[in-house]
């Protein structure tokens, strides 16, 4: 029997397959499709201090091998998450991570404090791809200093394993990765969506109400794998990789490049069972290739020098 368990610092997972924030609801929506307990974990939709309605439609657009979204961080708010969603997930043997965002550093801290010590919560993932309203609207995650500051503040606010989810819209992701590491992150998630845009050439208008949106799906995989490899070679803390993963082969690209675990995002929409299928495919790969543990593969890419 192969060993699929992995550790990302203080976060222990029974297998390295999670579902990405915003693509798996609060988990419960997938109960008709498979046993959630077969996953390593799930990451909640991004949580803010208060519920949010999100952006007006049109919110999504398909692009070649990808999709754009401007959901606008619609969510039930951290209180409803704690009272209504989290308790229903407790009996599943898997890790529940809460994805957190805010428009100010204080909002991040507020949500982290509320989540701290919540029964059944395995950790917190900070979504730093949000515009920082106090700081001219540039995303927290695109500015190493703002990123370090919000990470350090959340680090103080919670004893839970703390992951920082990096934005890919930067010149050198190693800088923001190091900033988050130095500020106390236990692990890094990467990557969030790339900023993109689609135009309806008949109407001569943007397809999305908010003009631009976040690109996800297979199209971005080569970019995300590269950033994972760069980051793996730049920091010491463990990584959670994502971006266009649809099957074990895709996931293995991230694992070989240095990710200790992976998240499945957009693929959940297309094939609701993809994350669960991936766990089985990964097991098969390890067995067929004679590996005892998936940990042997993490960062094991062979590069001639």
């Amino acid at each position, binding site marked *: 029997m192969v060993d699929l368990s992995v550790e990302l610092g203080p976060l222990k997972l029974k297998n390295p397959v999670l579902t990405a924030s915003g693509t798996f609801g609060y988990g419960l929506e997938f109960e008709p499709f498979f046993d959630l307990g077969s996953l390593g974990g799930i990451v909640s939709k991004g949580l803010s201090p208060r519920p949010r*309605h*999100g952006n007006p*439609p049109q*919110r999504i657009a398909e692009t070649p091998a990808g999709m754009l979204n401007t959901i606008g961080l*619609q969510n039930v708010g951290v209180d409803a998450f704690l009272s209504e969603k989290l308790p229903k997930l407790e009996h599943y043997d898997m890790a529940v991570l809460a994805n957190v965002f805010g428009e100010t550093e204080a909002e991040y801290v507020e949500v982290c404090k509320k989540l701290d010590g919540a029964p059944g919560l395995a950790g917190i993932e900070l979504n730093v791809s949000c515009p920082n309203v106090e700081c001219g609207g540039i995303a927290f995650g695109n500015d190493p200093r703002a990123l370090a500051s919000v990470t350090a503040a959340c680090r103080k606010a919670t004893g839970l394993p703390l992951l920082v989810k990096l934005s890919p819209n930067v010149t050198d992701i190693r800088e923001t990765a190091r900033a988050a590491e130095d500020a106390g992150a236990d692990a890094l998630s990467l990557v969030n969506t790339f900023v993109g845009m689609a135009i309806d050439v008949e109407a001569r208008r943007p397809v999305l109400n908010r003009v631009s949106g976040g690109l996800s799906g297979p199209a971005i995989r080569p970019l995300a794998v590269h950033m994972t490899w760069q980051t793996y070679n730049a920091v010491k803390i463990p990584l959670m990789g994502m971006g266009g993963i649809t099957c074990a082969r895709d996931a293995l690209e991230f694992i070989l490049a240095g990710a200790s675990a992976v998240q499945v995002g*957009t693929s959940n929409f297309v*094939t*609701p069972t993809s994350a669960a299928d991936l766990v089985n495919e990964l097991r098969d790969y390890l067995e067929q290739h004679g590996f005892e543990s998936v940990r042997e593969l993490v960062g094991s890419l062979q590069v001639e020098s």
Partner: protein
Amino acid sequence: MLDLTTSVIRNLDLGHGNYLIEFGVPDSIQQMKPAQFFMIGTPGSEPLLRRPYSVCGLNGTFPDNQRGTAQVLYKVYGKGTRLLSGLGKGAELQVLGPLGNGFDLPDTGRRALLVAGGIGSAPFPLFIRHLAEAGHPAPRMIYGARSQGDLPLLSWFRDSCEEVLLTTDDGSAGEAGRVTQPLERLLEQGEGERLHLYVCGPDPMLKAVARLASRFDVPCDLALEAPMACGFGVCLGCVVPVHGDDGEVRFERVCVDGPVMPAQRMAW
């Protein structure tokens, strides 16, 4: 809700880019309500997302269909429908369903009036069967489209409805103009008191019909369309603004809170 791998039984070319595709489904799917829908994917990785299609028929909806099947009526617009139209017997389909809420029967004292715009007629065959099974009289239908060729299944509807009023933008069939013309006449004649409108078609048509329904205070259910990534409520991509019970406008998901919504809830 099932995610099933099934195969095409036949894919009838109805002309003018309209097709009726039939595929095998298990018994549980036979319980589907009209205006519920499937997310259908074709083999291969393009397009990335599955596409939503209403259930058009099930066992017995159409006289010649096979047991254990479902039918979907579709029109070729882009990548997804073009691929679908190329599939022959035996081709694999990925079908997720049943999805959404579906049409309810009209209250006693009211008769269904179906209002369809082009391919928007897709959910009505199953609905017509449901009405008959529940002992309702055959409904009337107002069926509009751009042109004569854009009225798929017209002769079936003629056989199955009490009456089908036609409109076409170009006057090539029925009255020249929009579905709202005959509808407005009916309502002005005071028929509204005995009617429940069921509407499916392009957005501008839904809006125009909804305005009439509100003016004449007729119950009116709209089968909405929206771009969808998942179809089962998790992506939050398919929302429309609606009036909440509290009077505030909020976003609801067409895929699980719809696709059928009462016209008066819409906050367009």
